[in-house]
């Protein structure tokens, strides 16, 4: 590749002053054009969006006086969603550890005593009233090309399973969260990231509002206290405490 100096010298003999400089500009123009074309081609290849820390503000709520543990599935540590929009580009959304961070912060605010346990841990050995096991059932999104608007929308369907202190499942609650964000000057990636964060925040708001009503988790504290005070021979009737909440209809009219 010729150096800048060589390019100028190579045309110094030309009878037209400034000819070398003109060529130099032309070379740079070509390079810039090539870079622009490459950038456009890369853009057509797909977009990769990653979420790092979707923290939620400290909620204004009364904490539930109970001891709760959460056990996260492996997918919560590195959830990646890939989608090829038909005839368009490929999108990859890496939620990373954001779900773990979100739920840890959320449950930490909701319960007076909260801990996260490993997948291998046996919850029955722990002095807890309830064990929560959240998971992701589905992740969907739409881009402006699909919706014919300038908006990105994200839907996340979580499932929250709740177990009592003896490991018996007492609730199985599916929730659908929705987030929407307009394309901004910061670009499509930022808008999609924002829509995903809003969907997670929507899930957090729904859990705060509806969790006890839909799963009856606060009743486990009383059941646990009763169990501890009763003689060991008495087996509590756990069948009566099984809730399977009806699925929330997502409010995605927008």
């Amino acid at each position, binding site marked *: 590749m010729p150096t800048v100096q060589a390019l100028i010298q190579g045309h110094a003999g030309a009878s037209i002053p400034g000819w070398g400089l003109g060529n130099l500009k032309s070379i740079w123009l070509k390079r810039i054009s090539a870079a622009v074309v490459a950038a456009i081609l890369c853009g057509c290849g797909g977009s990769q969006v990653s979420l790092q820390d979707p923290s939620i503000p400290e909620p*204004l709520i009364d904490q539930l006086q109970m001891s709760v543990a959460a056990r996260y599935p492996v997918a919560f540590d590195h959830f990646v969603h890939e989608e090829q929009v038909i005839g368009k580009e490929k999108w990859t959304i890496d939620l990373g550890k954001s779900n773990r961070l979100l739920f840890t912060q959320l449950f930490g605010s909701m319960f007076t005593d909260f801990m996260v346990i490993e997948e291998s841990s046996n919850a029955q050995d722990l002095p807890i009233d309830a064990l929560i096991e959240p998971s992701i059932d589905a992740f969907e999104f739409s881009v402006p090309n699909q919706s014919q608007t300038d908006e990105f929308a994200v839907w996340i369907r979580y499932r929250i399973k709740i177990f009592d202190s003896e490991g018996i499942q007492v609730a199985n609650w599916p929730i659908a969260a929705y987030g929407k964000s307009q394309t901004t000057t910061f670009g499509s990636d930022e808008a999609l990231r924002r829509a995903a964060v809003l969907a997670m925040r929507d899930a957090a708001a729904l859990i705060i509002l509806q969790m006890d009503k839909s799963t009856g988790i606060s009743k486990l504290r009383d059941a646990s206290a009763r169990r501890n005070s009763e003689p060991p021979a008495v087996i509590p009737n756990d069948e009566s405490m099984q809730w399977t909440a009806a699925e929330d209809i997502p409010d995605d009219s*927008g």
Partner: protein
Amino acid sequence: MMKACSGPLRRTFQMIPVEKIRRPYHHLFLSAVVILAGTTLSACVTSRVEHIKESTTGIAEGEAIVIMAKSYHLGNETEAKFIRCVGDSMGRGREGLRVIPNQEFVDALFPWFEPRTAPAETKGLPALMSRPGVAETIKDKGVRYVVWLDGDTDKTAGGGSMSCAVGPGGGGCFGFAWWQNDSEYEATVWDLDGLEDAGTVSADVSGTSFLPAIVVPVPLIARTQAKACKGLADQLRLFIVADEEV
């Protein structure tokens, strides 16, 4: 490639008269004029701003307002930049009101003003205020009014045609295009002092943009959204400040 170009181009260059060498500057000048015209000239817009007052308003020193978008869970599509525009306009100037950024307000009251949880009517305000920490946070921030924005800007019609071409000697466009935009917004004002609906202010602005082109396109844009923003913000300020009888 450079070698292949150098011979013929050099000869061509020597034959060009001095006046023509200056032509690129003429193009630049022409482009500057077109850009200036495009930004200064604008098409006409028709605007209607009105309000309905339901209770006596007024704002004391230190009290603030928050501009919010109605929930997208309810189908609202108010643009984020419009909300920013109204907030900025109401807070600007010597008579500007204290406007608290809506994200700051929503975060401070999490989760009670999220799109899913925000009260849809003033009927829900007493219950909201009784929640732990809500009334205290609103009082700490000095928020007296919450303004809920609804509506959006749509392209309602359009037509014409224009074709552009670029060649080695330059480029140009020829044709005529037009489109009509309609900006319809409504602001509902909630008084957090009396926990009541203070009234509504609405702005309906429509305008037709034109884009004639003879070589160079000259855009005559009807800035309906900007006009609606200014009209709504000015009227909202009057609505809130004026301590008039209903």
